[in-house]
């Protein structure tokens, strides 16, 4: 979808709909980098008078709570209203950094109340750096305009006599058509067709109609479905010969209802949505906006937590509903000022405490460990090694919860390395990803290490503590640039090892060749990592060895 002027047309329509009736439009997930183009979109949205929130916003600000400053000053309790209670529309900036906790709270809110409508600004660069699915799945519109913004771009204005969306009727067959369509694109989440139905009504009202037409269905499907699709529907030609079950139902239904025009219409819809599907869908990748967040990162992300771990000295801070007050330290801070404050406020009873006296507790939290398996899947390391590694990954995951471990798997073969499994704690996802991992080709050891180093850096930024577990037979023969050159390959590998070590990433080298390789021992030295020769391992032995080495 690169450089796609149509995507700007869709954006213009979506924003027109949002301006028209944000509640019916159902929220927006806008995935694009900050810049003049995005500023233009935000300008266009400005009539909504949205309140802005950010991912680190406190519960107090969101849901309301004690206004500490005013309370202490007046001597009686003064509450703040929360943003969610007052705003019609909220804009969540830096949505890619939104925690699952915040996403869940906002999602629960959208389930229970009509407002506020959420507009999430997602600046994620990596596919899995995005809004948590709990929230993105509840936002009807998804936009990721590509290429240059057309000159004079502006949201589509509503028709001359717009209608109230609540009064728009939609025929049962039209609801069926949207639902069937979602099923054909492999969209299992039934929220999607629900939102499409609402959006179709919104679009009809926007165009000044009281009845939903095919146009409205097309617009709704094109705005809601493409980014959620997981499969291509069957080719229409193949359909005619041997209709697969889902598409078969739609014509049947409409036929019995005496609505023959729904049949071609269904295909029109399919084509409309198909044209918008991301190109990489064929490769079996789930598109960016919907990818399930790979890491089950519910717990223990922050380095400086305020809940558990080793206590640190208390610091001045705000009581924002998340921090715990250190009462003793607070009183100690307030004590010296009492005579002075008493002079100013002789009539106020009790201690005179100012917001600046508040001390909050801090703890240093242990961050979760991430085991990055970098596995040699080359022809020389027999393919069975890969199976052992897969088994080990699954076994380690199965016992990982208590150890706060996540795992990731990188395989290197042929001319490069590939991230086979992004950091995760989910066995289900792991099994799915590991099934049918290919093997064979050269040994690009340096590329594997490079990928591992990159992933280690990324995960460190997310608060994980990465450890690289390298499984190889050490016969590196592909250099970092992809050229087959044994000497350069070895040198590159040592260099990458030095990089890893310089960044302080801990590692473990497991030699899986039949006879221990001196080169690998050297590499382990460069990594400052334990070296383990483990010929003919199986998954259990490997798991045991890794656990033992890590605990040592």
């Amino acid at each position: 979808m690169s450089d796609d002027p149509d995507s700007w047309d869709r954006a213009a329509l979506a924003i027109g709909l949002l301006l028209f009736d944000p509640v019916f439009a159902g929220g927006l997930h806008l995935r694009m980098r900050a810049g003049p183009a995005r500023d233009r979109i935000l300008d266009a949205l400005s009539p909504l008078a949205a309140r802005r929130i950010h991912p680190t916003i406190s519960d107090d600000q969101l849901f309301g709570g004690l206004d500490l400053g005013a309370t202490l000053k007046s001597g009686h309790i003064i509450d703040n209203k929360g943003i969610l209670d007052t705003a019609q529309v909220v804009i969540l900036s830096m949505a890619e950094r939104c925690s699952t906790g915040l996403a869940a709270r906002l999602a629960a809110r959208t389930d229970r109340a009509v407002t506020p409508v959420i507009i999430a600004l997602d600046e994620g660069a990596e596919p899995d750096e995005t809004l948590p699915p709990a929230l993105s799945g509840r936002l009807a519109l998804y936009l990721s305009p590509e290429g240059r913004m057309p000159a004079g771009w502006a949201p589509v204005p509503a028709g001359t006599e717009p209608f109230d969306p609540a009064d728009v009727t939609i025929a049962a067959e039209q609801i069926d058509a949207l639902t069937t369509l979602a099923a054909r694109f492999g969209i299992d989440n039934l929220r999607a067709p629900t939102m499409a139905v609402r959006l179709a009504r919104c679009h009809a009202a926007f165009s000044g109609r009281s009845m939903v037409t095919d146009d409205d269905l097309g617009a709704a499907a094109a705005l809601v479905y493409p980014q959620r699709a997981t499969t291509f529907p069957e080719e229409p030609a193949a359909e005619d010969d041997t209709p697969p079950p889902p598409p078969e139902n739609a014509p049947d239904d409409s036929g019995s209802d005496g609505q023959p025009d729904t049949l071609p219409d269904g295909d029109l819809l399919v084509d409309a949505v198909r044209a918008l599907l991301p190109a990489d869908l064929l490769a079996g990748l789930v598109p960016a906006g919907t990818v399930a967040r790979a890491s089950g990162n519910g717990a223990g992300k922050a380095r400086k937590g305020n809940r558990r771990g080793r206590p640190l000295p208390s610091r001045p801070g705000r009581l924002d509903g998340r921090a715990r007050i250190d009462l003793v330290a607070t009183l100690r801070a307030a004590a010296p000022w009492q005579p002075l404050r008493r002079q100013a406020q002789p009539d106020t009873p009790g201690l005179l405490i100012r917001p600046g006296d508040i001390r909050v507790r801090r703890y240093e939290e242990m961050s979760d460990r991430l085991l990055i398996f970098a596995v040699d899947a080359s022809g020389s390391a027999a393919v069975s090694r890969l199976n052992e590694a897969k088994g080990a990954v699954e076994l380690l995951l199965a016992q990982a919860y208590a150890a706060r471990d996540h795992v990731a798997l990188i395989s290197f073969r042929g001319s490069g390395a590939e991230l086979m499994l992004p950091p995760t704690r989910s066995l289900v996802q792991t099994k799915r990803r590991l099934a049918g991992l290919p093997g064979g080709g050269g040994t690009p050891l340096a590329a594997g290490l490079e990928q591992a180093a990159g992933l280690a850096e990324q995960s460190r930024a997310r608060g994980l503590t990465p450890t690289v577990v390298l499984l190889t037979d050490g016969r590196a023969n592909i250099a970092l640039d992809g050229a087959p050159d044994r000497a350069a390959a070895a040198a590159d590998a040592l260099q990458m090892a030095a990089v890893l070590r310089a960044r302080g990433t801990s590692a473990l080298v497991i030699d899986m060749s039949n006879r221990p390789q001196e080169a690998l021992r050297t590499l382990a030295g460069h990594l400052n990592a334990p070296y383990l020769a483990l010929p003919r391992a199986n998954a259990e032995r490997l798991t045991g060895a890794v656990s033992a080495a890590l605990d040592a």
Partner: protein
Amino acid sequence: MKTPFPFSAIVGQAEMKQAMILTAVDPGIGGVLVFGDRGTGKSTAVRALAALLPPIRAVESCPVNSQKTADCPEWAELGSKKIVMRPTPVIDLPLGATEDRVVGALDIERALTRGEKAFEPGLLARANRGYLYIDEVNLLEDHIVDLLLDVAQSGENVVEREGLSIRHPARFVLVGSGNPEEGELRPQLLDRFGLSVEVRSPGDIDERVEVIRRRHAFETDVEAFMQTWEPQDAEVRDTILKARKRLAKIQTPDEILNDCARLCIALGSDGLRGELTLLRTARALAAWQGNRRLTRAHLAAIAPSALSHRLRRDPLDEAGSGARVTRIVSEVLG
């Protein structure tokens, strides 16, 4: 606030609905874990359940919903001591809720403005005698999980912080939902749920269409929709109440106890909790179905939801544990 969707109008998902109803018949079952795809009506079902459950009698001003004034905790400053009927509490525990909000804490407002040491009850207090609902339970932070395990085990919430020493009853049915793609649930917490069910998006297109149609009907005219479904919700409510009365009188033949034990041994489930839950749930099912006597059919019907999450996990086993339970049930019970 939106009106919750009527429980009876939820299309399909029979296993999930039954599990929830059984916990309403016998809260001692210990809760339901609903795992599965997004958008399958997990949250809808829990919120619908709240509206469906029979009301409870409680002291009006009691922070822990006590039935009698004598049961109210001594730290509570009771205002009105009137006994009122109120809906069974269904409390949301949001992810990222702080420890203070969950267990309760020193009332900072009063401490700072009036210099009084008072306890501000948390979510656990409010959930007493009702339901505690955790969406995305597998993403819950560890320290909150630890708290829940402790309280769910003892039925009592003990708070020792900031110079407070407070305890109050906290008996609730735990309902958790989540998506296994995003992380595993800790075995200890898994075990705490009486039943577990897996929900999937309906594969049948007609069923999907029905879901969307009902949703649409609900959204366009809430009142009419509620009126259509209220009689059916009321029927479920009545049946729950009748089943509660019947529950104590359900006969449990010795051979059924024997079957329970054999089933759990054959499955190798850890501890005795599996057997106890199996028995309790089977009895609740019998009561719900209006039977007087527990039979093998009851056991077989609920064994997958009572046992599948208690098996030792074999990560290399491709078949789901639900399938394993069904296989062994048919082997053991014939």
